[in-house]
């Protein structure tokens, strides 16, 4: 009996490897700089992670369905630029839905290509990364977009407001994480996403519409990107065309750090959130330690590998891999 409980503890720990890694890093950073774990700093980190985080939520769906989305960074630039531009032209009330509609169209296009036409998602989204960047440049004429009247608009609430003492971006992130977390874990759609990613053929043989499922994953991803763009635009009320550049790999890193497999079929929203927080706090912790940015690069490398290693080592119950 005693061994059984020990085993149970072991298997509980094994499931939470990434959480343990997270706690260890938090403790280490707090020891290194006591200011790390102050309310202000935690809020500031989570607030700026919220943008990455919201995108990562959507990409979690795409990755679990067995695909990739490398276009989220440039799509986020697109929605940020569009909503800022439309803000002054048609007012924030209309600008937000218009921007969501346009971003969702892009998502639908990708979803159509990958889901219905079954084109390779890596290349499709890599292509879209470039194409959407071109689209954004054409749209904006390459210019920065800024809201004319920065003080007078309620639009800033999404990025700068607070409610109940908590910054709104954090609230949005939490709300979306809860919504999407439930969707993935508890609804029939979530189940289908896992099935399609785990074994697409078997899912088809079970009557699951594979193409439609993948399509909706990209639509969810685009909706998340649009939300992230909204927060971003509202946070700075002005933006460059490249605001999201390079985020695609950070987003993917967060998702994978959370334990989703690139092969599809595994991962959870909760773990993605942990992955996002790990990345956010690493960056912030290293900044607070005042390390040179290039040392930060190297340390981030080591931490990412250690975190994932710990996670899978806990799962397999052995430190070293069994690969001969």
């Amino acid at each position, binding site marked *: 009996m005693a061994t059984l409980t020990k085993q149970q503890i072991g298997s509980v720990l094994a499931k939470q490897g990434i959480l343990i890694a997270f706690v260890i890093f938090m403790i280490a950073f707090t020891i290194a700089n006591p200011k790390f774990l102050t309310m202000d700093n935690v809020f500031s980190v989570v607030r700026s992670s919220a943008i990455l985080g919201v995108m990562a939520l959507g990409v979690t769906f795409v990755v679990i369905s067995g695909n990739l989305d490398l276009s989220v960074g440039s799509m986020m630039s697109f929605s940020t630029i569009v909503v800022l531009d439309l803000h002054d032209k048609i007012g924030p009330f209309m600008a937000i839905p218009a921007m969501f509609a346009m971003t969702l169209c892009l998502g639908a296009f990708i979803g159509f290509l990958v889901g219905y036409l079954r084109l390779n998602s890596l290349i499709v989204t890599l292509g879209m990364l470039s194409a959407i960047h071109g689209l954004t440049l054409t749209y904006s004429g390459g210019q920065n977009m800024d809201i004319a009247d920065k003080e007078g608009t309620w639009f800033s609430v999404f990025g700068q407001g607070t409610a109940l003492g908590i910054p709104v971006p954090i609230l949005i992130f939490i709300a979306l994480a809860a919504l999407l977390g439930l969707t993935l874990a508890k609804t029939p759609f979530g*189940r289908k996403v*896992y099935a399609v990613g785990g074994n697409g*053929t*078997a899912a088809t*043989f*079970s009557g*699951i519409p594979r193409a439609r499922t993948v399509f909706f994953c990209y639509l969810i991803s685009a909706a998340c990107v649009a939300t992230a763009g909204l927060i971003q635009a509202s946070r700075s009320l002005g933006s460059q065309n490249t605001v999201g550049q390079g985020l695609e790999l950070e987003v993917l890193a967060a998702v994978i750090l959370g334990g989703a497999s690139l092969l599809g079929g595994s991962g959870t929203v909760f773990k993605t959130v942990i992955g996002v927080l790990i990345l956010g706090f690493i960056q912030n912790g290293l900044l607070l330690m005042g390390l040179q940015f290039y040392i930060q690069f190297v340390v981030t490398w080591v931490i990412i590998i250690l975190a994932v290693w710990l996670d899978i080592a806990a799962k397999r119950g052995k430190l070293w891999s069994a690969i*001969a």
Partner: protein
Amino acid sequence: MTDAKPVLHLDNIVKTFPGVRALDDVSFSVMPGEVHALMGENGAGKSTLMKVLGGIYQPDGGAIYMGDERVVMAGPLEAKAKGIVFIHQELSLAEELSVAENIYLGELPRKSFGRVDWGLLTEKTNAILKKLNVGFDARTRVGDLSIANQQMVEIARALTVDAKAVIFDEPTASLTDAEKVVLFDVISDLKADGVGIIYISHRMEEIFKITDRISILRDGQYQGTVNTSDTTEESLTQMMIGRKLDLSRNASHHELGDVALEVRGLSCGKLYSDVSFQVRRGEVVGFYGLVGAGRTEIAETLFGLRDAHSGQILLDGEEVRINSPADAIQRGISLVPEDRKGQGLVLGMNCRDNMTLPQVDDLTAGPFVAEGAEVAIFDQYRDRLDIRTPGWKQQVGNLSGGNQQKIVIGKWLSMHPSVLIVDEPTRGIDVGSKSEIHKLLRELAAQGYAVMVISSEMPEVLHVSDRIVAMYSGRIMRTFTSEEVTEDSLIQAISGLGGDKAA
């Protein structure tokens, strides 16, 4: 047999997985020139024991001896170096590579500069393929072969090295009779060379035909070893499952209902042509033929996975178009596919979720999946089909092959279909469960289901069917009733000889 030294001896082997004691103090030995059967129910631990022997798993306790020497199988490489050849239960092939490369995987012959010696490789492979009498050559891409031929490639590996012991883990699960004959020839050649052979199978007739001794496992525990000539099917079964088996064909006499499924003149290119048949409620129709006869393709068409070029499908007398599995499911058709790993299961998902996958949209409480209802369904079919698993949370990929198959069957039974199509339903299933499944199919028919059974096992088809459709090369050669059918006439019909062409 007593004074000869065993080629292999396993001593008190223990192996546990999280939540499962797969092997519990198992001892077992094989003599040179002996065909030693290993039997047991699904999940008894046969494959696990062999993987310990093959160096794929490390035992938690016990020892392995070869001759007098204690050996440690640190990995597949060591096992192979020590002369142990392992033909796996699940196909273990690289589909993109050629037959020759697969047969010699891990030991391709080399020339200078690390080059592959293609000449030698082809030569050696062709020699083996000739012995096996197969219809493909060394250069064929393995992915282009049928499952049965892929199995022959696996088997060919047994002939590549000077083996001391060869393990066959259910080699015949997807072979046809002709190929089985070849396999048995191979085994008797090996035997003549003094090689020790371990043979795992659930098929009694094979066991009695080719093996010398039989060891039995139950729930990871060693039950004993008997001489094949001294035992009977019944006593073996009793050792394996701990009770007697009821082999009678029950529920066979009941009224047939209306025609549930009718197919008229269905054709699909080269795959099958002009296929017409009917299945009534309460009827089990068996489809028998050689591999490649086109039966699976017909099933796939009925299930909306393949478009027919011409012909009609009628359900309850009404012509329907079935464009997708969702369509088929909605119209009450279920298909248990032939390839459980590729088509039947999401291996990384747990048992419960796999089982309820097709109906997940209907099992809801508000916007969420009703997990309680799911567990209830799972429990019901676990009990009904005797599925051995520590619980519904277990990943399906960790179940034994036979138990995986039962999950697939449970999944489709739980849909309460009006037309149930099962393609090779008992592949890899132990005797006990097999008879349970046969009984179940009969019962379902009695309850008014229309059942189509596709099988390459003649006894199975004969046992469960009310009528038998014999197919050859995409065409229906003849339809037999259970009263008129004989083994000979069936074999004639499916080999394209004689047999009048009846609808």
